[in-house]
């Protein structure tokens, strides 16, 4: 099973994680991999912690990634990286969007957004942290943050030889193609 790779995308409902994983799966399929992907729907989406799991290789059975099994953890939100870190392989990579979305207990003042997350991640994992939101804003649309993350992910995973720009062209609406390709490139530059 050594040739199977596991990508765990985590974040908060509404951050565009499903589109990101759709692009990822399309690209991986285009070069002949077997791919499985698992998503979360329903109640959990309402501002809750969400995850999409993508597995690829010659032949994939289980659609889900176990604890200690992810080759890479891509977190669209800072605190979510910590929540899912137990799914990371010991020598796995972490890519984190330096972006905070306070959860309900923090908003009502009964808890504080945790401090020292970056230091904790740096001390225990091979982590790259950058501000994907600022990059996306700089491009003119904060919603392209998800594609910035895809760019960083494909570079970090060493699957940047796939024609991701072509995949984006075939996935997003025509008027958003250019900005998303820019977002992809910017993301790749972060690694």
């Amino acid at each position, binding site marked *: *099973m050594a040739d199977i790779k596991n990508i765990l995308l985590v974040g*908060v*409902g509404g951050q565009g994680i499903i589109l990101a994983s759709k692009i990822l*799966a*399309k690209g991986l*399929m285009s070069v002949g991999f*077997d*791919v*499985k*992907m*698992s*998503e*979360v*729907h*329903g*109640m*959990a*989406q*309402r*501002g*809750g*912690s969400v995850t999409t799991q993508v597995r690829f290789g010659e032949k*994939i*059975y*289980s*659609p*889900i990634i*176990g*604890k*200690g*099994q992810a080759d890479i953890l891509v977190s669209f939100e800072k*605190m*979510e990286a*910590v*929540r899912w*870190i*137990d799914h*990371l392989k*010991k020598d796995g990579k972490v890519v984190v969007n330096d972006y905070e979305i*306070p*959860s*309900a*207990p*923090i*908003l*009502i*003042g009964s*808890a*504080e*957004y*945790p401090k*020292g*997350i970056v230091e*904790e991640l740096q001390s*225990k*994992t091979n982590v790259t942290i950058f501000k994907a939101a600022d990059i996306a804003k700089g491009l003119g649309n*904060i919603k392209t943050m998800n594609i910035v993350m895809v760019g960083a992910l494909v570079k970090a995973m060493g699957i940047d030889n796939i024609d991701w720009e072509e995949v984006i062209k075939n996935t997003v609406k025509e008027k958003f193609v250019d900005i998303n390709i820019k977002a992809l490139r910017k993301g790749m530059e972060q690694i």
Partner: protein
Amino acid sequence: MKKFLTGNEAVARGAYEAGITVASAYPGTPSTEILENVALYKEDIYAEWAPNEKVALEVTIGASIAGARALAAMKHVGVNVAADPFFTYSYTGVNGGLVIVSADDPGMHSSQNEQDNRMYAKFSKAAMVEPSDSQESKDFVKTAIEISEKFDTPVLFRMTTRICHSKGIVEFGEREETPMKKYEKNIPKYVAAPANARALHVKVEDRLKKLEEFSNTTELNRFEWNDKKIGIITSGVAYQYSKEVFGDKVSYLKLGFTFPLPMQKIKEFAAQVETLYIIEELEPYIEEQVKAAGVNCIGKDIIPRVGELNPDIIAKAILGEEREIIKFDESKTVGRPPTMCAGCPHRGFYYALSKKKNIMVTGDIGCYTLGSAAPLSAMDTCICMGSSISTGHGAQRAFQKNGIDKRVVTVIGDSTFFHTGINSLIDIAYNKSSTVTVILDNRITGMTGHQENPGTGYTLQGEKTGMINIPKLCKAIGIPNVRTVNPLKLNEVNEALDEALASDEPSVIITRWPCVLKRLSQEDVEEFGNERIVCEVNEDSCRGCKICTQTGCPAIEFDSNIKKARIDENMCVGCEVCLQACPFDAIEKAGV
């Protein structure tokens, strides 16, 4: 052609390829996308949202008796609602093939229980298939239709969340254009009156014998011979998990047709392997039958019957293997429970309700179930679809009969009201309950991702249709006090609640405002407008009392450094609930 599909999308494709022409469902996670995708084959399949699962199943039973191939889809608890027609249609048998999809939710990602609906096949004596991935989800629909027609039985098509919502590569086939079967009047078969039903039951028992023969010969139940020290009998996603753990190192009996079980094949398999494991999610459905047949096996002694299964649980249970895990400081995370969205019309109503004293609130199933969460904590019960009104009535009567001074408010969404709430409201009117019923009409079925319903004016396949007029309906049932309010206006809600609580007669309050995520129809824009002027905190006036945070709005954050509230301008939609809640007028409309 190959496509990357969820199990649900694959079932829809399977319905198309199997020549199905009628499909009906009520939305429910994890089944919802099945009908949404069937509906896309507009030319070939009539697809509809029914008000509930019983209706959906009956619609497809009618189509099947008429001679068409048909499919009904529902979540596991939906089968409870549809159980009545299901059991009897198993007696009568079909004309055109009928597939009933049950999407179970082990782990309760979005459900109130994790019942294992494989039990329904055994209970109803209908045949059952269980796909284990997206490809099988497509292929098995056609197979199930063939089984249904060949053996004269409806077929239960049992899926689980991980099959429904996982994507895999699916190879497409062609649509099989099947002429509709001839409808012939057949009273002994289709009129399940006692005299006929007695004969039907005999036929059903005979059918089971034939189905078991089929189960023992079909390729849906197949051996995968490898080393014979360990043998595993498994089905559904548990098969994929088992393959993940053991690969080609052990032998498998992979079951795709799981009722009746292929007991002959099972015995043959058991005789050849040293240790036999049954790996199944939730109940020991296979294990109990295998043991009853006198075959020794290991199952639920080591595989938990609670919660969702995964490869790690199997590896630990059978091999004693666990992966090394990076441990992190738990203080570095704070929980992230789901919340009602910023601008959710339910928030204003719940905020007002949460201030009422000495009441019990019976709730129901939908996004508004989140009204039970802190800081609102304004819902006391949630049992099943449509239960709020009737449980509320029962509680109110119990309080009254036993001399306890407490009032009951029941809360239900529009789609849930149409589902099974209407019957309960009839009970309220008929039995003169003083219960206060609140129908939260957000103009859409929200939680499952915005499906049309009998109140929205559109059908599943996008046609315009009539809208149920809820106030008129309530009046027609016989509710004397019916009032419609804007849930974002706290005064209106308060007044309506106070008035209803002061009355001994049945009262209904309808809160009418669209879900903040709804794509507004022309009618919605005309009725509700679509301006968005965000709210902002005037820091000079804010005294840091945190009352606005008690609305539970995710756009409001309390900054404990400066002891002031702050509103996220990107999230706020200007619903003004916080503005009304603030006792110091410190929240204002931006630029106004």
